[in-house]
């Protein structure tokens, strides 16, 4: 038997794979049969119901699943990984600075604020151009800009830290 914690949309599911098609989802026992159609497609039988699921592996712990026009970003951890992850989250919450990450890949068009500037929550701090649109990023917290890791005109990857506020 193996046990996993699956996070989707900020909800957590405890999944125990018992073998013999038996699975416990948050203490509810279900009978499931899964067959692989291709590397990107699975058939999922739940009792008499059948679902065709498109899968996309994002990394070892993360899968994008498309079911009947609905999309789920699932993060799967073993119970041990989950415990480690929770400890890390508590640690990062106690730190007093926040990172401004690129919500999309794009080009850093303009830094409205510079290192050392005071910023208020919600104040525009930079312009990011993606797919020909200018997007204004606003400050996630109030404080002073500590570091800026990119220059104007540079391209940034999604989720990369552009600057930090403390």
């Amino acid at each position, binding site marked *: 038997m193996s046990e996993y914690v*699956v996070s989707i*949309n900020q*909800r957590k599911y405890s999944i125990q794979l018992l073998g013999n098609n038996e699975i416990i989802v948050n203490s509810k026992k279900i009978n499931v049969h899964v067959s692989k159609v291709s590397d990107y497609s699975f058939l999922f039988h739940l009792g008499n119901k059948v679902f065709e699921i*498109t899968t996309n592996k994002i990394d070892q*712990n993360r899968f994008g699943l*498309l079911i009947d026009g609905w999309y789920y970003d*699932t993060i799967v951890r073993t119970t041990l990984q989950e415990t480690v992850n929770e400890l890390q989250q508590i640690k990062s919450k106690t730190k007093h600075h926040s990172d401004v990450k690129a*919500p999309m*890949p794009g080009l850093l068009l303009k830094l409205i604020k510079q290192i050392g500037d005071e910023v208020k929550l919600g104040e525009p701090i930079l312009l990011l151009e*993606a797919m020909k649109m200018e997007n204004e990023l606003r400050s996630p917290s109030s404080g002073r800009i500590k570091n800026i890791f990119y220059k104007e005109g540079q391209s940034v990857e999604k989720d990369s830290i552009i600057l930090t506020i403390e």
Partner: protein
Amino acid sequence: MIKKILIANRGEIAHRIIKACRELNIISAAIYSEADKTALHVRRADEAFLIGPPPASDSYLNKEKIIKLAKEIGADAIHPGYGFLSENSEFIKMVEDSGLIFIGPSSTSAMMMGEKTSARRLMKENNVPIVPGTTEPIYTVNEGKKIAEEIGYPVMLKAAAGGGGKGMRKISSGDEFESSFSQARNESLKAFGSNEVYLEKFIENPKHIEVQIFADKYGNYVHLFERECSVQRRHQKVIEEAPSISVDDSTRNKITRAAVKAAKACNYFNAGTIEFLMDNDKNFYFLEMNTRLQVEHPVTEMITGLDIVKLQIKIASGEKLSIRQEDIKIHGHAVECRIYAEDVDNNFAPSTGKITHHRLTSGPGIRIDRGIDVMSEVPIYYDPMLAKVIAWGIDREEALARMKRALSEYQIGGVITNIPAFNWMLKQKSFLDGSFDINFLDKEFLPLLPGKWKDSSSEEYEEIAAVLGAILKEGELQTTISQNKVGHCNLWKGQNYE
């Protein structure tokens, strides 16, 4: 006679034009940037030519290079698609001067309508109603602020050379003027090569209704009825329909006449679209004319049975309009959903990458116009639209039911798309009863982000997703173990979970 067409575009529209060429036995020549080497339009064209590096300014917007190439390869005509150079009157003039045929209007018509302020003047002179505002561009913040106060906030700043929502800003008060003014000017400069902007009164809660017109080079004009395009986000259309649920026969009569009048005012020929804003009392105002093929042309094709792209090519080659107004009828109802590579719940962030899996939806009444296939790259350089799903039904109810069914079957893997969001849109009361306006998504959808728009059917699937996630992870771990143990036979790998 046109024997070979250079298609100066990419994505689904280049693919759409290739299909028309094939049906007319015309050779299609695609151009592509270094980012589009294996793009679908390249795969489907008869001939394909590398035009330059990924940024559009070095490739799909390189006027001289495109015309030179067309001459070298012996093309007779250039089809510009939409976006890129399609409404650039300077480019059209260059094509005309080179002796090639431009599949679209004359450079003169495009210029008259392309410069939005002069178009507004022209419409005013021809008794086509316009939105109150300036008919001249604004150059300074002070000048703009003064006019804004005269016509009253809120106002809209718009790119004089523009369209498609770029270089456009709503301004609610004088405080916002300066930053919006410079943003709109910058965006406009980048998208259209001009930083001229003008002001319009902001019409509260209007609908976006547009009319497809068609004309030949001999002064014959027809309209192909209206399209409803009010479901928009940041001025980009998301759902389009034909006909509009809100346009009654008398309004239809008036708005289509106004559209033909607008087209005649600029001696238009080929396909064009007159966009209007329509208020609650069914008063309509000229917004702009799109002097090109529209993204949403398929819904009109579905209800009229006409092939707009083939008609464009025939008219460009000098044929007369073969259809008379009285022969064009509305048959049934059509809806189009634009599939964008974007993560709705993550502030609509564009999702780039490789398409790993792609299975089309099909069946009764369904048509897909697409720019992607398996192993296509979705690059950051261009528009994030992947495909359009179009559904036809004998009435709106059937068209919408088919659309919902089709979207649930459409499988795209490798990038995140906006398909789930349509599950919400297509069942909202205001969408179904027709009371929606251009603020529908801003007012009703955006407050539900992230995640709160998902309903109970989504929750059932979420549990299934969680289970499959765990099974896939188990498979990952097993694979790692089996790779470490030589000779170990893993019965699970690639097979069933028992």
